[in-house]
Structures are given as C-alpha cells and as structure tokens.
C-alpha cells in the first residue's frame, strides 16, 4: 500500500488530486458521474461578495491543445452560496475549498469572513489571478505590493488554511510567491489562466465577447510546470500545481517539479473522470517505482 495523503498546513487530503476552481462547479455536477468523495478536494467555483452575471456570450474559444474562457466569475454571491448551495454539499466527505474573489480588498475580506464561519470549509483559495474581470482579479496578482496587501488583510480575517492562487501573467512569479508567503499564506496554488485572445479570421471579430480571455489546457503545461519549479524553490510553504494536467504522467511531472498537490481543470471538460484516473495512475506509478509515499516524489527531479 502506498500513501497518497498529503497535508497543506492544517488541510488534510486523502490524496493530492483536487479539481480546479471554475472547472468543477460545486461538486454536484461531478457527482452525476461518480462518487466525489474519492477526490482529494473540490475547489468550488469562484465566489464574490455579490451576484455577478459574468461576461456576455460567447465566453469560450477552442485553441490548439487548449481553450480560452471569459466566464468572468459568474456566481450568485457568497450569501446565496451559504444559504442555498453549502447545505446541499457540506456533507461530501472530501474537503470543500472556496475560491474567494473580489474587486476591492474589502470585498475579499468580507467574503473571507463569511466563509470563515462555515464549519465544513477547511480552506480558502484566494484568487488574485482572474484575468476575466475588469476590476480586481489579476491586477492584485501582478504586483508584489498589491499581492502582499490583499494576502495580509485576508490573513487577518481567516484562521484556517489560506491558499493564494497566483497569476502566471507576470515577469517573476517566484517573487510574488515569496511576497504572499511573507504575509502569511499557508500555500500557493498556480497557475491560473494565461491572458490570451482568439479571432474569427473570416468574420474579423474576436471569438470572445471580452476580446481577451484566459488560456488553459495542455498548451500551457510547459510554462505552468516551469513556474511550479521556480516557485517551489523560492518558498517554503507547499505549492499546489496546475495547468494542463490531463493524466497521471502530467501530474507526476508537477510533483517532481515541486508540487505537494495538484489540481485538474480543463481536462475535466474532456473527461470528468480524469481526476479519478489520475489518482489510480499515481498509485500505479508509486507501486511500479517502489515508492511508498507520494511525498517522496515532491521536488524529486534529478538534475
């Protein structure tokens, strides 16, 4: 038997495979296919203080080995979540993590405070990297100063595990990671989507209503992997890696590069079973290589 359990500060995961925010709804949609309690954790869809309609249609464009999205944090707000959704999902036997968003620091703090009250939410992921909203979002994640400020303020409002989700749209992501670590982040997760664009050449119009959107999927994996590698060598807190993970081999690459856990995003759209296949694949890999604990893979790249 191999050990797949990992710890991110106080957050205990039975396995290191989580579903990424915005790609797995509230877990219920995946529960139509299988028992979601098998997942390491579920990152709930991005939540803001108030209802957001998100961006107009079209919000999606297929690209080479990837896709662009411009959802823009459509959600019904934290109160609706607490009253209507939380009661339905709170008894899943897997950690539920709220992905917290805001356009101002105050909004981030307010959402965090309310989530802090929820017994069955052991952690939040502070999203300072959404490229699809006009205010806030990625802007917080692209300078050390603002990343520090928002992390510091949210840290004060939150007593459980605080994960900060980083934007890849920066010159030096390790620097940002160090900045949020110094302000009390318990973990960093990366990467969010890359700002990209797609055009309909025949109609000469952008394919997204917002012109630009966030690129995800296997296309970005090499860059995401490099960033996880850089960040994991720059900080002491655990790193959660993601970006184009489609199968167990991809996941293992992220562990080797320094991730303590991983998230699966776009792959779920192709096949909702991907996270479970990855869990099986990790177990198989460890057995084949006679490694008894996934933790021994973390940062184990030989170079």
């Amino acid at each position: 038997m191999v050990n797949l359990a990992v710890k991110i500060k106080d957050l205990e995961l039975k396995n290191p495979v989580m579903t990424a925010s915005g790609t797995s709804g509230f877990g219920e949609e995946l529960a139509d296919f299988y028992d979601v309690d098998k997942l390491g954790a579920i990152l709930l869809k991005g939540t803001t203080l108030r209802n957001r309609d998100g961006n107009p249609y079209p919000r999606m464009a297929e690209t080479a080995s990837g896709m662009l999205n411009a959802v823009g944090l459509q959600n019904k707000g934290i109160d609706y979540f607490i009253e209507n959704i939380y009661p339905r999902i709170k008894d899943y036997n897997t950690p539920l993590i709220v992905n917290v968003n805001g356009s101002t620091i105050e909004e981030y703090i307010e959402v965090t405070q309310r989530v802090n009250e929820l017994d069955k939410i052991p952690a939040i992921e502070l999203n300072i990297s959404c490229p699809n909203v006009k205010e806030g979002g990625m802007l917080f994640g692209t300078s050390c100063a603002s990343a520090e400020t928002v992390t510091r303020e949210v840290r004060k409002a939150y007593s459980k595990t605080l994960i900060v989700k980083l934007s890849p749209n920066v010159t030096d992501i390790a620097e940002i990671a160090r900045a949020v670590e110094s302000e009390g982040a318990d973990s960093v997760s990366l990467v969010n989507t890359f700002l990209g664009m797609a055009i309909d050449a025949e109609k000469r119009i952008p394919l997204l209503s917002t012109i630009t959107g966030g690129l995800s999927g296997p296309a970005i994996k090499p860059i995401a992997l490099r960033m996880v590698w850089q960040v994991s060598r720059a900080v002491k807190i655990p790193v959660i890696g993601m970006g184009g993970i489609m199968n167990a081999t991809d996941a293992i690459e992220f562990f080797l590069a320094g991730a303590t856990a991983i998230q699966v995003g776009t792959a779920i759209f192709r096949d909702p079973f991907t996270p479970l296949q990855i869990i099986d694949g990790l177990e198989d890999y460890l057995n084949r290589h006679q490694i008894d604990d996934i933790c021994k893979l973390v940062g184990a790249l030989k170079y």
Partner: protein
Amino acid sequence: MPSNRIRMKKNVGEFTIVSNSALNNTNYHICLQSDIGLPDIAPGQFTNVDIPNNKDIFLRRPFSFFDVDYEKKTVSLLVKILGRGSKSLTELKVGSKLNLVYPLGRGFTIPDKNDKVLAVGGGSGVAPILQLAKTAGSSPGQMHIAIGARSAEDHISIADYLQFAQFYFTTEDGSLGEKGFVTDHPIFHDLTQYNRIYACGPLPMMKAIAARAKEAEIFCEVSLENLMACGFGVCLCCIEPTVKGNLCVCTDGPVFNIKDLKW
C-alpha cells in the same frame, strides 16, 4: 426495457460505430453501439463527442440524440458538416470507437395524446424533432412536423416517421414542398389549432417561430445550440440570458420554454 440499463445520471463511455453514411449533401447518419446498457434518453437530450481523428480539435462536440434503441444498445446521431469536427466524424470508419459523455441536458416536454402539436425542424434540428414524435407515439392527426431546408437534396428521408406525424416541407429553392423559409409555410397562417409548438434549427428560424408563438400565446419550446466546453454544467461557457439570469444551455437546456428566454 432491458435490465442492464445504466444507473448513474451521466456517463462517459466508448461506443462502436456500426454505420456511418451520408443521408444527403450535408448530413450524415452515424449509428453507435454501446457494450453496456443505455440509460434513459429523452428527445432533445444530447451527447458530447470526443473527435478522435483530428489533431486540431481539443474539445468535444455536442450532438443531439437522433434515435435510441435500448434493445440493440444503439444510439444514432444526425451530423451536419459545419466545420472541422463534424467533418472528421463523418469520415470515421465502421468499427472504430467513439467516446461519448451522455446523456446530457434536458429534453422537450413530451406532448400527451390530447395535445395538438406543431414541431419545426431545420438543418440537423430535425433529429430531435423526429425523435420527439417517435417517443410521444403521436399520430399524423395530432402532430404536424414542418421541415425546412435549402434544397430538396438537403432533406432527409422521413419514411419511418410517417406513422407519427403529418409532414410539411419547404425549400429555399422550391425544389421540394413550398418555396421559402419554413416559417413561410401556410400552416403558420393559423397557429390557433395548436397548443404546443416545438422548434429546433438555426437561430433565426427559432426566433421567428418563437415570435409567432408568443404572439399567438402558445406554449413553445426551442432547443439552443450555444457553444459548449464541458456539456455538463461546470464551465459556464454555454450560458443564455433568461428571465432567471444566465442559465446553462447544457444543463438548464438545451430545450427552453420561450417564455424564459430574452428573445
């Protein structure tokens, strides 16, 4: 119904292509067999199909169920060649495998024996309309189906469905049935004989029909074809603005009652 019917609400599974043939100029009929039992599949529901033979395609492509045979464990799709993915599907050989996410979405409200129905199909939109008639077990007196196409060669054979509905055809070039758009057909002159209208096809067609139904205050459902990434409600890419806010076409639809739409 066989007892080995699948029990999960939604599934991902391999199907084997048992036939793949051109119906006419632009439409193919692809019949797929599952190794395991099929879940219940309602008219208007769809499947998200992995396109195996095209390097340039990353996401799945959604297609309505055209027909379901629970005994033979087969489903069939009516595929209209629109772009790269649909084209690639039509090139697949019998015997090759296709990976499906199914069944997805909410189908049409099945009319009952007392309903007097007008169902309108355009392009590949005829697929769920024909399945609706078959599933409802309607009769030609009770259900009228109007099918529009560009030209006679774009129409598919409806021989198997004559028992379920009375058919009316239009073509833009006049080569079959009435000349013009489907909404130009005389049956639209008096809609009051119907208490239900269904439509599936190009957006302008559905909008025109919705406008007429609204005017006549008749129950009307349409099936939308918004661009999709996941097909099962997690990506929020397929949204349609409705009176209830942005809804997902893949889970709250694809079939919508027009009273909910902002058309």
